[in-house]
């Protein structure tokens, strides 16, 4: 089912949580709703689900206006930030709930329910836990049960509120992959909320960046990474070095081979766009190597700008381990920098 939001606004008292949101999500996409804490992600998701009422604007699912429809009739699967499993029910009964509350004509027989629930539990690879209670499960297991429960009623839209928020890093990594595969299998239009840009880029086919209740940019992960629409998006997606172009910075940037005659007052440079070479003439070196850290395959290098004035700010560059070894530089060595490209903002 496709999702279309037009002019959605929401206030809580004086506070404007969402401001004129327009968003179109085609059928079958897996979309990440990305933004810092408190920017309105949950609120937007709840409005789509019908758990919250927007002050203005309309919610259309498959072209049908569902703005006034009650949450129980929207056919939306919602996975809550803190799972919200029914604590007094076993895993099996949790997953069966949505089937059992159907009215008599639509309700499957107990045997059908049982086979469907077991199939779903197998899908999330947790069938062996069917008679446990939620408080006897780990966070990752609860997460997957919550997902199975939402899938039981065959929702046409799946909304996941920070599905991996409460999990540790390694479990998150596994579940991301798993969610992608699952989406591939079921192909149900899905939105998942996250404030982790890496997660958004890795899992989603489309990323929507939200800030202060407004959509900053929407596009494919590579689109957003390579062509950030504004300063906020650029700063939020991945690490950047920020230069404000007063006279000194401009002069310094010139020495790194970057064309400064351009475009704006602020330059964002990604760490991997900074190339490092050993200084030929140490008196004219553009920077001094301060320190480095290993990030797995990459190495992160801390550099200090070599300028006449006091603005000796730190820069970060990244390069593969091997390349760094070939450089043969030590802490305190002068280096020359070559900045390949920057994003310019006003």
């Amino acid at each position: 089912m496709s999702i279309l939001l037009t002019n959605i606004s929401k206030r809580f008292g004086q506070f404007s949580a969402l401001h004129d949101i327009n968003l179109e999500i085609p059928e079958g996409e897996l979309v990440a709703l990305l933004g810092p804490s408190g920017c309105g992600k949950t609120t937007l998701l709840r409005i789509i689900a019908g758990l919250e009422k927007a002050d203005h604007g309309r919610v259309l699912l498959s072209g049908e206006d569902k703005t006034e429809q009650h949450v129980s009739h929207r056919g939306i699967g919602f996975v809550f930030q803190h799972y919200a499993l029914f604590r007094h029910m076993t895993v099996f009964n949790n997953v069966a709930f949505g089937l059992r509350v159907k009215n008599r004509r639509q309700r499957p027989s107990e045997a059908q329910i049982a086979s469907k629930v077991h199939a779903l539990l197998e899908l999330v690879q947790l069938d062996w836990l069917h008679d446990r209670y939620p408080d006897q499960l780990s966070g990752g297991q609860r997460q997957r049960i919550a997902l199975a429960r939402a899938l039981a009623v065959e929702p046409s839209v799946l909304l996941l509120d920070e599905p991996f928020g409460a999990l540790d890093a390694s479990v998150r990594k596994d579940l991301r992959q798993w969610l992608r595969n699952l989406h591939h299998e079921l192909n149900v239009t899905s939105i998942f909320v996250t404030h982790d840009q890496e997660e958004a880029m890795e899992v989603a086919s489309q990323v929507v960046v939200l800030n202060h209740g407004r959509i900053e940019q929407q596009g494919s992960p590579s689109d957003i990474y390579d062509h950030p629409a504004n300063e906020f998006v650029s700063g939020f997606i991945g690490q950047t070095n920020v230069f404000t172009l007063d006279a000194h910075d401009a002069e310094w940037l010139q020495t790194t081979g970057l064309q400064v005659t351009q475009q704006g007052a602020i330059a964002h440079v990604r760490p991997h766009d900074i190339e490092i070479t050993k200084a030929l003439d140490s008196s004219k070196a553009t920077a001094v190597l301060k320190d480095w850290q290993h990030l797995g395959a990459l190495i992160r290098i801390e550099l200090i700008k070599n300028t006449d004035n006091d603005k000796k700010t730190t820069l970060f560059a990244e390069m593969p381990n091997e390349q760094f070894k070939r450089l043969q530089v030590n802490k305190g060595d002068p280096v020359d920098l070559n900045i390949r490209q920057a994003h310019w903002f006003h």
Partner: protein
Amino acid sequence: MTANTNQPTHTRAYADVLHDPIWVRIGLSGIAIGFIVLFLCIPLALVMVEAFAKGWQAYWSALILPDTQAAMRLTLLTAMATVPLNTFFGIAAAWAITRFEFFGKSLLTTLIDLPFSVSPVISGLIFVLLFGLQGWFGHWLSAHNLKIIFAVPGIVLVTLFITFPFVARELIPLMQEMGSEEEEAALSLGATGWQTFFLITLPNIKWALLYGILLCNARAMGEFGAVSVVSGHIRGLTNTLPLHVEVSYNEYDAVGAFASASILAGLAVVTLVLKTALEWRQGKK
């Protein structure tokens, strides 16, 4: 201090941290236990002793007196009328306060406690002022030949007022702590409002609810002050069990008074046992 060295290690660890010498601990426990025995156990035992002072026979015949029987029936009737109603009102109020935002919500939350904060006698008087002959509705009521004050409806009404907070006050903190996410999850899975209440909310609050009902019932049966004001003390008609105890006692019918009191005391003990059982149940969850 040989007693100290004989103690198991974990209590020793406590003692080391708290630095309470043993005589302080024994002294405080002694005072607490002594107080309980003196002010709770002895009076309760005394009720029994006095009730049976003239033997089983006298006890029994005091209980089967028509006036005593009428008082018991009225007490039961009052409880049966007020407890279900207040269970319903309590759930409704707790639901409204914890699940909705509305104007005047904090006022409502405060008002729920009103019956606890005014003296029961005042509560009774309020009802007399409202429904008594000289009261606001008195004229209209007597014109329509309706009797509330000095009659059973007044007793039920005033008990309803007095016992209103019990259920709501048990439920509100629990439902606040629970949050509404599980209910929202149920709704999003297609459940109706009723299904959500009976399948999700009720199972989660049932022990607290029972606890509230129990306390509500104990008070409904035991209320004296407010009921005394509106009842009129008509023997065999508007005397509840607590009032009957007082009337009998004032008439120097000690066995009658204490026999009725023993019923109330027995009720209190049963309530206490059930309450402990419920608390234990809740603690286990």
